[in-house]
């Protein structure tokens, strides 16, 4: 695949669409969660208001360079994840910078933001951030393990490290999806999905009841806006990977919207109705349930 300058414009368009999609989708999801609690919830445009408000705010507090870079890393992680994964299968515009080994890069980017965040938040010197980071890293590592195993399983299955090729292999019908061709790997990956979406029962890292609000404690104003942007972008980007790897990808924006929403809702479905695990309980959970399924997935292949 050759690089062309126009791809940058295309990629920017992808990012723009995804951010807007994310802003609205997360608000819709909020409203869905609110309904379970008997509330109307926020207006769908609430995320925009928050974002604009925070961007407009400036700060005089300094915690050091790394602190400022934290959200940048985080957002870079989100954008990077999105851009090196084909968003719409078969679309030239939204093919992004997909390449043969993009699967590995994508896995790296999943971690990249978290690590960046860890560095930045650590610099803030706030104990909440420090504890949040240590717990977050521990938990995310454990939660991503099943995903990694599932990815190994399907890369073995499809004999490729290119996401585009994996999506291509799933075309031609519902039952060509990895979901049906390799359900065990999908299950393992779904453990990771639920575990990393920062929703109960695996959101103790940011639990306001203990260490409000975890790593981002000290972030405010425009930095917070960056993080908010990432917060709507990153889950979508991550979901795109799942969509591509296990649910046949998307061949147009409509399919994209439906599938991402559906996959995202899996974590919501669990999250809304559960309390959260302690960190060591989460880790134990993933080691006990996620890891064996992941290993099983590889073995089956």
């Amino acid at each position, binding site marked *: 695949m050759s690089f062309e300058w126009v791809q940058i414009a295309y990629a920017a368009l992808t990012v723009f669409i995804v951010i807007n999609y994310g802003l609205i989708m997360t608000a819709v999801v909020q409203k869905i*969660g*609110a309904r*379970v*609690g*008997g*509330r109307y919830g926020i207006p769908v445009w609430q995320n925009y208001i928050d974002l604009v408000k925070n961007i407009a705010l400036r700060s005089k507090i300094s915690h050091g360079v790394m602190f400022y870079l934290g959200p940048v890393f985080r957002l870079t992680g989100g954008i990077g994840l999105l851009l090196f994964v084909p968003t719409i299968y078969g679309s030239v515009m939204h093919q992004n910078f997909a390449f043969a080994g993009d699967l590995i890069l994508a896995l790296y980017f999943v971690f990249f933001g978290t690590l960046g965040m860890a560095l930045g938040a650590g610099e803030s010197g706030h*104990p*909440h951030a*420090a*504890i949040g980071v*240590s*717990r977050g890293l521990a938990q995310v590592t454990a939660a991503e393990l099943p995903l990694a195993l599932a990815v190994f399983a399907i890369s073995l299955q499809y004999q490729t490290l290119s996401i585009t090729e994996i999506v291509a292999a799933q075309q031609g019908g519902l039952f060509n999806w990895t979901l049906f061709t390799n359900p065990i790997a999908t299950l393992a990956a779904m453990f990771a999905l639920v575990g990393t979406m920062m929703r*109960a*029962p695996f*959101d*103790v890292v940011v*639990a*306001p*009841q*203990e*260490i*409000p609000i975890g790593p981002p404690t000290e972030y405010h104003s425009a930095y917070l806006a960056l993080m908010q942007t990432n917060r709507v972008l990153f889950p979508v980007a991550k979901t795109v990977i799942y969509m591509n790897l296990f649910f046949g990808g998307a061949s147009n924006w409509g399919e994209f919207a439906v599938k991402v929403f559906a996959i995202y809702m899996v974590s919501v479905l669990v999250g*809304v*109705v*559960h*309390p*959260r*695990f*302690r*960190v*060591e*309980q989460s880790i*134990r959970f993933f*080691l*006990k349930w996620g890891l064996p399924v992941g290993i099983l997935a590889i073995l089956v292949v």
Partner: protein
Amino acid sequence: MIRFEPDRSQYPQPGDDGKLEIDLETGKYLKLWHGPNHPGITGNMSVELTLCGDEVVEGKVHVGYLHRGFEKLMERRTFIQVFPIVCRVCVPEPDFNEWCYAQAVEELAGIEAPEMAQWTRTLILEMGRFNSYMMAMGGIGGALGMGVIGQWMTYVRDLMLDRFEEMTGARIYHMFILPGGVRGHLPEGFAGRMEEVLATAERYLADVDKAMFTNAVFKARTKGVGVIDPALFEPYGVTGPNARAGGVAKDLRKDAPYLVYDQLDFEVVTETASDIWARAMVRRRDIDVSIALIRQILAKMPKDGPVMAKLPNVLHWKIPRGETYVAGESSRGEYGYYLVTDGSGYPRRVNVRGPSYTHAMALLEHLIPGTNIADVAALMVSLHTYPPEIER
């Protein structure tokens, strides 16, 4: 399986004076302020935690963020003027203050509230208990990250507040139980509307049972966590649901019946495990008792009759020298007022005995060391404490 038992030898050890030697310079420990403005704290108080990893090695409770000097303010007010401020000692269950104070004044002044007032008071106290438990249920869900429970309970509590509103003219600070009786009769059709609320409450509580109490994650977080040894109950002044969760079947409504509780049928709810689960469960089951009691009261109470005893002119009401202590079983335990009069028109001393005073101070400080930081909020909520009672 990997064990996550902490290595206790790494923890600070008590020095010669019995105090823990915590040297923050070593970098081994981390100070963390839990509160006062904190979603995981039960009201405005704070716990100064010392962490080793995410294990708490010491917790010091700090209060005073809400101190308004109520007891002192009462000494400056006439007996009737105290009435509007007592309810403010406890937000979620203010009526207990009103009743304890009114009863204490009546005892010392030799006044007896009419029967109708006694029934109405009992009704109010049970409604207040219901509300308080609603907050506790929501709180325990919320403390563990299950906001849905909190939202449901808030809704149900709100319905009960609607009933309070139509009955007393206010939602939170009802100011309805005056020394001498209560302010008025139940509005027309009150019982019917109350029944609707209770039916809704039962529907939501059934959902809570399914979503929270039949929930693997909830069980994992609460069973065996925050256990209070029943041997600590008396030294630490543990009363009410916290003690009942440890198998102590003590309930002042039953043991020392006040108001009209001796004319009502109910059972004292107990659990045995004395952990967070048991404390939540005792409260969950006590809600059912409260609901049943509200129904009973509305069915049994007289339909009409005077609600106020004859009072002396309250503008210059003097009460002879004396002292008394009036206590009842609030949703959190023994709630009492110690009133001392000196023959003047003002109380000499009013002391509020809130259950949180013992539960959130000495007991909590005793329980906190050794818990995971993630469990501190749940532990506190499970003790169901309200800081205003501590500092008054």
